């Protein structure tokens, strides 16, 4: 049984809160880039809508999709950023030689991400709704399911990213930032899965976001998501979270076996 002491989880969250509270350079990225993305895609959507006749709102289709994709990326970065703070401050030995369990540590990273990604989501919604009239009304209650799937997958990506940096060293953070961009062609954010060539489709089908964006397009086209498709996406996302936790635990065990954590403190791993 996994035992979690809430006070320890809260300590990880509190550390991140302290860092964000006193730092403009940490506060700005929470909303500036996603805000700019909303403005950019808002104008693109408005321009394309004027260039042709569509049966659905392009703002809802394009800007709405970008907003959800950015939300997922913010969730992932929320986890990795909180983890990187320990990398940058050489805090691994203090953290991993303490009674903190891995489940508590990861739980703290996830809760930190919930807080930071909620800020990003709120800013994106304000900009998209106020400036471009974005409405998620066509999706109804399914919007909550879309957000849940993307949130879970973002968490899974964040934990995997943290594991990669734990295994490969601080310089590996440059592998982590582009992960959302690398996945986006497979996630079918802007086009149907059927558009992809044969070899890309199996990859798309194992990525939970593809079920979300396929479902969104189905609704905008006047139909419904295929029965069970969204549930499959949610199940995949939940499985990905479990898989990511398992991977992080395996990497941590490797790091304890090889002395990686102890040497990490001295930054001898590159």
């Amino acid at each position: 049984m996994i035992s979690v002491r809430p006070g320890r989880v809260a300590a990880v969250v509190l550390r991140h809160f302290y860092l964000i509270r006193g730092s403009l350079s940490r506060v700005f990225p929470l909303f500036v880039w996603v805000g700019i993305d909303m403005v950019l895609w808002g104008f693109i959507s408005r321009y394309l809508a004027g260039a042709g006749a569509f049966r659905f709102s392009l703002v809802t289709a394009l800007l709405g999709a970008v907003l959800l994709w950015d939300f997922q990326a913010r969730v992932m970065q929320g986890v990795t950023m909180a983890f990187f703070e320990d990398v940058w401050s050489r805090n691994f030995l203090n953290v991993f030689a303490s009674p903190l369990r891995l489940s508590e540590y990861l739980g703290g990273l996830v809760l930190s991400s919930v807080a930071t990604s909620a800020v990003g989501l709120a800013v994106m919604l304000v900009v998209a709704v106020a400036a471009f009239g974005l409405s998620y009304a066509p999706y109804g209650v399914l919007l909550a399911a879309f957000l849940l799937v993307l949130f879970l997958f973002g968490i899974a990506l964040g934990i995997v990213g943290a594991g990669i940096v734990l295994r490969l060293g601080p310089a590996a953070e440059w592998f982590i930032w582009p992960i959302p961009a690398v996945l986006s062609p497979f996630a079918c954010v802007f086009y149907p899965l059927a558009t992809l060539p044969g070899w890309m489709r199996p990859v798309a089908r194992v990525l939970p976001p593809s079920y979300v964006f396929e479902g969104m397009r189905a609704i905008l086209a006047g139909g419904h998501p295929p029965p069970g498709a969204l549930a499959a996406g949610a199940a995949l996302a939940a499985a990905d979270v479990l898989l990511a936790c398992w991977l992080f635990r395996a990497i941590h065990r490797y790091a304890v076996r090889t002395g990686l954590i102890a040497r990490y403190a001295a930054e001898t791993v590159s």
Partner: protein
Amino acid sequence: MSETLHPGVAPAGAAVGPAVLAAEGLRKAYGALVAVDGVSFDVRHGEIVGLLGPNGAGKTTTINMVLGVLAPDAGRVTVEGLDLAAHRTEVLERINFAAVYSPLPGNLTVAQNLRVFGMIYGVPRLAERIEELLGQFDLTRFRDTKSGVLSSGEQTRLSLAKAVINRPRLLLLDEPTASLDPAAARDMRERIRRFATGGTGGALWTSHNMNEVVEVCDRVLFLSRGRILLEGDPRRLPAEHGKATLEELFITVAREPLSLEQG
């Protein structure tokens, strides 16, 4: 060796009390390099044990194994009878450490660091405990100062305040006074000595300052090439091996360990 090493058995001259730490047959190799080879020792309540040896002798590797951040290839670590491998969290709740190479995050203030680590260690009445430590370690005026801008001596005091925040049964100190001036180092030794003798905790201490070791430690273990070469009272050990001072003995351990093994 001047003493036979059996975990759980107190050597002559050492503080009498049950073992807080027992390390049995610890071994760690990195490929062909054996960093620690069959190391066994114990630390008793109220006792400060010095872990000495030249660079690369295996001191930090041993401490890392006791801290649970490095898994031994063989052997086991128990703290108050609890096996570290089987009860990691329970064991780590009972110990704490300060190491010159592991400062607290410099981007948090002194009080924030103590709060975060106090919560991680589950310290009861934390606010009260933080005030107590700020006073004890002369850190009150730095309460809201970012740890990263403190002098090395002030950072060491903060590391030690964090190291005792949970009133550990076992305190691990890896060269805790390495960056301190003589006055600050003496002050720190007294604080640690008070901790070890005044409570129920024991301490394992590494240092390259032999005068400090003589002043502080009840017992020392000399490591060489991953093995314990000598063990005993730091005030008597040099004479037992025909040396005038502990420093002379240290140099012999570093340069001619075989002469001591054969002796």
